[in-house]
């Protein structure tokens, strides 16, 4: 089937999509956007988190057809080299990235948190990120990064 949707602000049409493919597969293998990662295929780890019509979802659980006509924003759409989002900067600076496989999903989920809450408490950060597994960092540096990005974003407002 043919799938029409908007990715990172660009209208996109993808052909030859098999109905059983997930939005994650379409993004990674057909739309050239491998940023969202496939780590559990069950919505348990959050590595595939993307915005779908403005809400973060696990792209591995979205059947391709369900994305028809909708807006998707991936980690690639948050910012690129030279124009990083403050959250991306903070992840690098604070040591929140080790192997980095969980990072794209965490960035989208944390980005959504900071869009909704200007000064999140630690408890709010933890609750918001509870669906994103990280195996390397023990999460401490991730908390540091989200706190730092929140400060910088608030200061820039």
């Amino acid at each position, binding site marked *: 089937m043919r799938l029409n949707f908007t990715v990172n602000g660009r209208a996109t049409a993808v052909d030859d999509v098999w*109905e*059983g493919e997930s939005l994650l597969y379409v993004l990674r293998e057909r739309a050239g956007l491998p940023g969202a990662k496939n780590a559990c295929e069950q919505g*348990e780890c959050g590595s595939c*988190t993307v915005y779908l019509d403005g809400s*973060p979802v*696990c792209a591995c*659980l979205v059947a391709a*057809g369900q994305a*028809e006509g909708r807006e998707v924003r991936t980690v690639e759409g948050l910012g690129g080299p030279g124009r990083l989002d403050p959250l991306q900067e903070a992840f690098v600076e604070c040591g929140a990235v080790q192997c980095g496989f969980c990072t794209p999903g965490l960035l989208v989920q944390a980005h*959504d948190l900071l869009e909704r809450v200007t000064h999140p408490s630690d408890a709010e950060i933890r609750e918001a990120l509870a669906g994103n597994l990280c195996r390397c960092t023990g999460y401490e540096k991730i908390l540091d990064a989200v706190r730092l990005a929140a400060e910088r974003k608030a200061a820039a407002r």
Partner: protein
Amino acid sequence: MRPFVYERAEEARSAVAAVADRPDAMYLGGGTNLVDLMRLGVAEPARLVDVSRLPYDTVGVRPDGALRIGAAVRNSDLAAHPAVRRAHPLLAQALLAGASGQVRNMATVGGNLLQRTRCAYFQDITKPCNKRNPGSGCPAREGDHRNLAIIGHSEACVATHPSDMAVALAALDAVVHLEGRDGPRTLPLTELYRLPGDDPRRDTVLDPADLITEVTVPALSFGGRSHYRKVRDRASFAFAVVSVAAALDVAGGVVRDCRIAFGAIAPVPWRARRAEEALRGAPATEDAFAAAARAELGQARPLRDNAFKVPLARNLLVRTLTELVVA
């Protein structure tokens, strides 16, 4: 995954017609459970009828105070709804305890009610399972059943129902609105689910073409004094080991009325009517709460490795009710 046809329903009648004609067609809501089951080969629909964009996506309050919840409402939107948080906090708590933010942003009310069990044997198509493959046997009885049922199960099946939201709705006397082959009808939520008995294949009494369109929750004067409490194996995002939904009406130290349901101890969201009966008119004390728990859990028939759920369910109920007295 078996090949299938995907189509998006534009309105309820055509959706019902699309499924009614074909025995191996299924509705698709948020997909958080069904897409996973298809990948595992547990569900093998030949046709998926996507009902997630049908116009059942609003929450409202009827003049009589009852809550109307569209079947396509996302779990996150329902949990955040002011009327839910005010009048039925146990429902909001159950939804928030149910999954991560990302999953709540996808999962629908209708789909949540129809989740399939997390029993490891049901999920693994290389193993026998009477629910998935009738007559093949139930290895869980002798095998791994640490987190399976202690009550309401049968020789044929010891699976539990995985939903948190459904437990809260069972306590609240919710009513399920359906569109079926013969038009619309309603069903109390507690009658939606069926015990496994000799035929664990179906979790509910629904016909495959029945489409959940709405859930209504009648007004409950003491709904504001309610909690959903969940014990799980880690701090977040894990299925319940035991959960309790409870609402309590206390006056002068006496229980006037209450609503209680347990999760993760039975094949269905377990409305604890014996406990409720024992509590009405009883003093609002820990002893009475423990007696009510015994009245309900006295029926329990735990398996080799899950007897701990009996005291755990009791402790959780006593804890939850005691808190509601204080609240």
